[in-house]
């Protein structure tokens, strides 16, 4: 089995992240609807996963031993689709068919239309439970693949998250890692205004998880955190709280709740692309 080649250079990863941001802005604009804010906040985390940390092979997406990645916050699908395109799972041109009739790139991840996805998501709160299932199966089958699940901070208000949070440490699922895209916003407002999760890290710790808090846009922190979770030798699952900025990379989207679920108009797309272009070295 050939594995996906790891990208060792951080500069190269940064360049990939920028291209994915451009793709996200373009594809949501072309679709005319979608969720730019929570897609842009995921980018470094997905880049590090797909080009550095995950054991996977785009030529063999159903490989038994592949690491599993489940996007529980399904509305962030554009970032995942961009990562899958850059990794070679789907053609990059396909990105512009997002949300169009017949496209494999549905508004939220849809396994019927794109079978390489690990799960169909879009109703928040359910991804960790699915990840527990795949992690349990790995233990049962004595396989050494790792399961990563990405959730949102707003999503963490769902009760099922905490049912799952209780289960995984009890069953010593050290082959499971939850990544929280902690951009501090949800749909209607900032999470601290709607229903605060504080003290967030302490909650996970008290449920029995290894918890690490990082800057989710800094590869210098993202890569070591994901790699050590992947190599976890303790008896606990890992929760990485990645502090991020919703809309990161585009000044007028960053930290602005308006951009949760609105597509940029062509002028706004062009303004965003100009800013991203200026970030290129």
């Amino acid at each position, binding site marked *: 089995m050939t594995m996906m080649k790891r990208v060792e250079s951080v500069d190269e990863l940064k360049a990939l992240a920028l291209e994915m941001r451009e793709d996200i802005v373009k594809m949501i604009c072309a679709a005319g*609807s979608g969720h730019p804010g929570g897609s842009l906040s995921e980018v470094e985390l997905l880049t590090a996963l797909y080009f550095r940390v995950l054991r996977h092979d785009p030529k063999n997406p159903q490989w038994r031993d592949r690491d599993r990645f489940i996007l529980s916050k399904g509305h962030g699908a554009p970032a995942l689709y961009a990562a899958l395109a850059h990794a070679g799972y789907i053609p990059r041109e396909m990105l512009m068919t997002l949300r169009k009739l017949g496209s494999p790139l549905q508004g939220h991840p849809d396994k019927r239309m794109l079978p390489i996805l690990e799960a169909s998501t879009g109703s928040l709160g359910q991804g960790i439970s699915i990840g527990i299932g795949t992690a349990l199966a790995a233990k049962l089958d004595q396989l050494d693949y790792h399961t990563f699940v990405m959730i949102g901070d707003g999503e963490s208000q769902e009760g099922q998250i905490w049912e799952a949070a209780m289960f995984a440490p009890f069953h010593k699922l050290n082959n499971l890692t939850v990544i929280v895209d902690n951009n501090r916003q949800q749909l209607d407002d900032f999470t601290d205004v709607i229903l605060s999760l504080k003290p967030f890290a302490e909650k996970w710790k008290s449920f029995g998880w290894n918890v690490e808090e990082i800057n989710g846009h800094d590869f210098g922190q993202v890569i070591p955190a994901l790699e050590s979770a992947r190599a976890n030798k303790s008896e606990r699952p890992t929760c990485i709280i990645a502090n991020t900025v919703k809309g990161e990379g585009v000044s007028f989207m960053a930290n602005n709740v308006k951009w949760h679920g609105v597509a940029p108009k062509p002028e706004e797309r062009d303004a965003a692309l100009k800013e991203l272009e200026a970030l290129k070295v």
Partner: protein
Amino acid sequence: MNPTASMKATTTKFELKMGKATREAYGEALAELGRKNPNVIALDADLAKSTFSATFGKEFPGRFYTVGIAEANMVGIASGLALSGKIPFASSFAVFLVDKGYDQLRMCVAYPHVNAKFVGSHGGISIGEDGPSQQSVEDLALTCALPGFVVIHPADEHSARALVHRMAEHVGPCYMRTGRAKAAVIYSPSDTFEIGKAKVHGDGADCAIIACGFEVGYALQAQAQLEEEGVSVRVLDMHTLKPLDDAAVAKAARECGAIVTAEEHLLDGGLGARVAQAAAKSHPVPMEMVGVRDTYAESATPEQLMEKYGLTAPYIVQAVRDVLKRK
């Protein structure tokens, strides 16, 4: 989540005048209720801007709770408020409110029969691009399976507004489905509506089309088209699915001898199934049913989806032609 999409069928000459989305009318009616009754409380699960409960929230911040992304908790809280004499209106997308809150709707609301009101927006597949995870095609069947519930699915802004007021007056649990897209204007602000009483359009006696929600607009287009073909039909806007207007179904069956139903919902347990049950008891006649057939839809524009899944006026016209052959 933007209110610009509209539900215009493309293939008939009878043009519908588009008005507000029923979800927007819900927000306005809720604010009207808030002004009349200090016991009206609104709750939402992080979709207040989309369900338009935010319209109430802006005016009455002290009586408005956004509970977070926690639908089951919201339904339970509504139950407790109702048990304490408040009139809670809890809203979210239909699919999250009903599917995630179902055990709570059953145990905390239907079973003890408390006076709580629930409004699920973004019903059906006409929400478009967000895809099946956000498209509710089962909420009407699920809520009709809650004993003692009133279940309402209005066709336009005026009926929605009036029926929100009827829900508040009714003592007991209620569910209303609203839509995301702009809805055709079918009524005027002075039209009156009663829970459980169908609105009848025309007196055609070849066939009755019984519809709810957006399908009422399509049914009226089908009626106009069929008229040109020399087939005279009447349209029943069955805005209340439960309690169903059994008398209106019996009368339509007796006088027309054929029924077509149309709903933006799975055919399992929705309007068609309920009308068939009523007609079977009173006056069985041949029936055809327009609705979503045992599948989840997909992402696309509202118009494309209504077309692809067979819910627009031409499909109703065809269903009438089919049922007439069996008369």
